[in-house]
């Protein structure tokens, strides 16, 4: 089966402190994948690195066997809901239309086709009647659905979502889940950062357990075991966190230049 995402020996640091340490895994296509781990385990950093928003100190990531820039139009990203100011002067339609923005239409006006696609996306998340509602007047669950509609409007093949279930009511949670399953049935790949263990087993087909280092990655039956969960949620490894502090305060590089594992040029 084709790989949707490949993460190769990835090390990423924040303020020169490693947040992801030699993480290496690959993911299948056409599945709902959960990236699961405790707070501060590097889940969001993982997603941001795959999306090119953070630069790795070492290693690389690929989507459908290619660097991100080659497949950007096939990839959609849903940031955390709290990462934006919802008091921004825009209505629901304005935000969903942002999903149609591209490098090559930046200077062009929004087309009728864009509007049609955005309307369709709003219909799918059941927010069509709110199209002209101010985004500041939406509930948390509705805001999350606006973000998902924007992502649907991108018409991608792979969707990376950062904590889409945080702060939403039970009805919205069900609606989102049903939508994700529909997407999977259409052959799309959905990758979700999730911190709630209770629901992880029910939601995902495939799980990546993360706690700064990779604990396990694979089909949920293999990963969702007591031992592995305990390892992921049982605190950080003492040696790793001591080394991380040392590297950060003493200004060591995380990799010497000749050992950076960039993707070999063809």
């Amino acid at each position, binding site marked *: 089966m084709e790989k949707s995402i490949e993460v190769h020996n990835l090390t990423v640091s924040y*303020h020169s402190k490693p947040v992801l340490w030699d993480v290496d895994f690959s993911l299948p296509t056409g599945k709902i994948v959960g990236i699961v781990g405790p707070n501060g385990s590097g889940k969001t950093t993982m997603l941001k690195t795959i*999306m090119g928003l953070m630069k790795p100190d070492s290693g690389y990531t690929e989507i459908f066997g290619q660097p991100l820039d080659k497949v950007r139009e096939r990839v959609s990203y849903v940031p955390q809901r709290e990462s934006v100011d919802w008091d921004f*002067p*825009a209505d629901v339609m*304005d935000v969903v239309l942002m999903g149609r923005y591209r490098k090559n239409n930046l200077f062009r006006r929004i087309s009728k086709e864009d509007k049609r696609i955005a309307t369709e996306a709003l219909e799918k998340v059941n927010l069509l009647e709110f199209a002209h509602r101010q985004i500041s007047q939406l509930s948390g669950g509705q805001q999350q659905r606006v973000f998902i509609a924007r992502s649907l409007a991108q018409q991608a093949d792979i969707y990376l979502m950062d904590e889409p279930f945080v702060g939403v009511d039970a009805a919205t949670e069900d609606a989102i889940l049903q939508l994700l399953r529909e997407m999977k049935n259409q052959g799309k790949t959905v990758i979700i950062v999730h911190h709630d263990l209770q629901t992880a087993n029910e939601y995902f087909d495939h799980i990546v357990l993360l706690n700064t280092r990779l604990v396990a990655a694979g089909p949920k039956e293999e990963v969702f075991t007591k031992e592995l969960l305990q390892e992921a949620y049982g605190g950080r490894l003492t040696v790793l966190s001591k080394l991380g502090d040392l590297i950060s305060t003493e200004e060591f590089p995380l990799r010497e230049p000749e050992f950076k594992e960039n993707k070999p040029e063809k």
Partner: protein
Amino acid sequence: MDPIFLKVLIGTTLLASSAAVVGAFSYLKGQSLVGDAIAHALLPGVVLAFLLGDGRNPIFLIVGALISGLIAHYGIGYIQSRTKLKSDTAVSLVLSTFFGFGIMLMSLIQRSGQGQQAGLERYLLGKAAAITMDDVYVFSALAVLLMVGVGLFYKGFQLMTFNEDFAAAIGLPVTFIRFTFTVLTVLAITIGIQTVGVVLMAALLITPSAAARAWTKSLPTMLLLAAVFAASSAITGTYISSAIPKMPTGPWVVLVLAFFGFGSLIFAPEKGWLAKRRRALANQKKTVRENVLKLMYQQEERNGVSVVLSTENMLSIRVMQPEKLRNSLRDLKRRLLVVEHGNGYALTELGRSEGRRVVRLHRLWELYLTERLGMAADHIHPGAETMEHVITPEIEELLVKELGNPELDPHQSPIPYEEA
């Protein structure tokens, strides 16, 4: 019309409205101070350009300001990314260093006696009257450039302001968009400091947007309104300063802008102070009305028949301000919720239904507090006294559903539903 006056009028109007449109994005991004920092940081560039050019050449000046401003802007960014300093620290560090350097350069020139001091000082506090015809041409060209720039980059600026990560994730050229925005900001400030000066420039960038935001929720409308506020301030300010002898233009423009700004904060619909006051007052009145109806309904509930209550009766049952009670009863009568009977009041059918609704909400909420929030039955009354006035029909429906059409509240009083 006086040609000097006309020049000043056109110059200030163009620069004020174009600066407002560019400043809107800084305002929305919560970076109001960055404009202030860049305005101060332009000073060394302007002074050096003054030295190199003949002191009056606007092109020299703009290039000098642009270089100085860009160095300052990227300096702030560099400090933020390389140190753990908070952004306001980085901004003030750059602001004061550049401004100090600029002032030092200015005194050097003054000491060397190049005789153009007066020309230089206009950049500190601005001197609109010194605008020349050349300036007006350059301002007009720049103002057009700024408007066209914002129009062209509208989608980019909008998305970068709202959600920069998403802009980067979909592959927009974020570095290029950010650079363009910085250049436009520096250009706006460069023409701005000629009339209002370094110190007052931030007002021209930020105040029109702060005022406009209070009136609208759409970005295009907000940009337009900000430009209109800025232009009207510029025109008014220029008139005032020309009508009264020895009055400076810049400070007047800024004062008129402040008038728009504070006026908007007070009078704007929904978000304005007056509107909030009005809402609070309306809800206070609603609370008193509903309390009276509840009181009357509960008396009927207790006695099993409709009752006539005088204001004295009511005051003996519930502590209320007599004046407010009387006003409220007048209001209730007008709304056909109560009728007068002798020297007392009785509920109409409509009023009974309203009273029943308030009692129902009170009891539903008490039940919710004990069942869902695990509160003890003797702790729930004060919360319910407030919530009975807040709960909407939509939330009521949710409550009834979640509690499974309950019959009794935690004190074993029946929850009164409307008979079908």
